[in-house]
């Protein structure tokens, strides 16, 4: 029983990563209608950023946690202005290809500079212990990650539902043309929203650095799973991507613990296919409204 609980909590921890990444993807897709394939690369840059902060600047995890996402967010805004923005009026496929190319460029730049091998990054000293309750035992850092992910999702939720910025983003996401006709400069918001989504990916990357091997290819495959999460939750649905992120985390953890390896491997994609057949707009999505 304790082990089942440990497995479930662990699923939630992993779900936190899916949720944060899916949330960024969903916000970007909603506002820009861009399927940002480079999201995994930004996640990798987040982890690498944490590593470089430590190695080059001597800045600990606690500094990297706010600093790296901000820097990446600014970088993301620059990229949006420089290239992505130019293609938003064209078929979404163009930007999908563009961000795919960006992924390869970012990965190769990091490979070229730092090699393909992973780099050591430790759990911050304060969180190296484990939390115990009876026979239930769990690494403190993972609990922290889960808490932080929930907090980050809640903060985004608050931002989107309780602030004027969030209101504008929701309106522009749902009906960009109407929102423009009501006097709101939708284009002005696409750059910060893209940067924000990128910052969220960077945040997930920083949080992953102490848990996973920090190498240029991390996130390259993860992004496929996150795409599946977004599709299951409903493209552009904020609540959908968060709920599905945590749900998929638990489901995969259970499958890995209690089913043959092949189940965990295909589970997410089988669910995605089923959802697409049964509810093409996703579990939390709405059918497309005419513009």
């Amino acid at each position, binding site marked *: 029983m304790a082990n089942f609980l440990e497995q479930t909590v662990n699923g939630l921890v992993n779900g936190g990563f899916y949720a944060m990444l899916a949330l960024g993807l969903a916000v970007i897709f909603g506002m820009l209608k861009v399927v940002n394939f480079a999201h995994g690369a930004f996640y990798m840059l987040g982890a690498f950023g944490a590593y470089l902060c430590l190695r080059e600047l001597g800045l600990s995890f606690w500094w990297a946690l706010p600093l790296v996402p901000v820097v990446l967010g600014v970088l993301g805004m620059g990229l949006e202005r420089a290239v992505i923005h130019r293609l938003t009026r064209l078929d979404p496929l163009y930007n999908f290809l563009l961000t795919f190319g960006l992924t390869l460029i970012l990965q190769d730049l990091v490979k070229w500079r730092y090699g393909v091998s992973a780099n050591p990054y430790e759990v911050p000293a304060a969180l190296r212990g484990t939390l115990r309750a009876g026979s239930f035992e769990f690494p403190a850092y993972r609990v922290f990650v889960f808490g932080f992910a929930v907090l980050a999702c809640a903060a985004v939720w608050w931002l989107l539902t309780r602030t004027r910025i969030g209101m504008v983003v929701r309106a522009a996401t749902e009906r960009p043309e109407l929102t*423009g006709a009501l006097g709101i400069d939708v284009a002005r918001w696409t750059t910060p929203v893209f940067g924000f989504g990128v910052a969220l990916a960077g945040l997930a990357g920083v949080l992953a650095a102490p848990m996973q091997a920090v190498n240029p290819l991390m996130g390259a495959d993860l992004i496929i799973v996150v795409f599946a999460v977004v599709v299951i939750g409903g493209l552009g649905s904020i609540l959908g991507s968060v709920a599905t992120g945590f749900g998929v985390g638990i489901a995969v953890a259970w499958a890995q613990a209690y089913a043959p390896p092949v189940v965990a491997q295909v589970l997410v994609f089988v669910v995605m296919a089923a959802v697409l057949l049964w509810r093409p707009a996703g579990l939390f999505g709405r059918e497309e409204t005419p513009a």
Partner: protein
Amino acid sequence: MLRVDRLSAGYGEATVLRDVSLQVAAGEVVTLCGRNGAGKTTLLRAIMGLHRQVQGRIELLGTDLGRLPPHRRARLGLGWVPDDRGAYATLSVAESLTLPPVVGPEPWPLARVYEVFPALYARRGAAANTLSGGEQQMLALARVLRMGARLLLCDEPTEGLSPLLVGQIGTILREARTHGVTVLLVEQNLHFATTVADRHYVLAEGRIVEALDNDDVQAREHELLSYLGI
């Protein structure tokens, strides 16, 4: 207030509007009527800047709208009331009202909006698209009145509404007019049109074929009805 001069518009190869010229004076309520496909909605969208494939000139209060994007036109005082009523699913009624910026000298305060539209007050926390059709139409109107828009572009606000609600819309438009709001209205309901409007343009195949006043409309009601195919 509004001057449209030799405006042509199309979709790809197809021309939808040909050399349309019209004027709306400040404080006037003017309707555009015509059969489906005559180009009424395209004309409104072209004025709003939502339809980009246009030639000709559109002036608002003496300013050439040129290639201005829709949000800039809205800020010059255009109030957009779309034919689908534009109710957001992700915004509450109250949020929908406060979403657009204030653009004119005489915006309606929120309190006044709620006074005039008690149904919106009662449901201010609900998602806008959960309102009834009539309430959604009220919301679309209230939204641009709260902006302080000077020229409302209303695309068939009475479509599908009960006579009672149609009457209410008329009341609101007349009320707005007394506060100096100008209205360009796409309308199929001739009777309703004569109760709110001063003048009427008849569009056919992308051209303005007639300009009428209320007396003309009443005198030629049967002819016009058959012409409009109603």
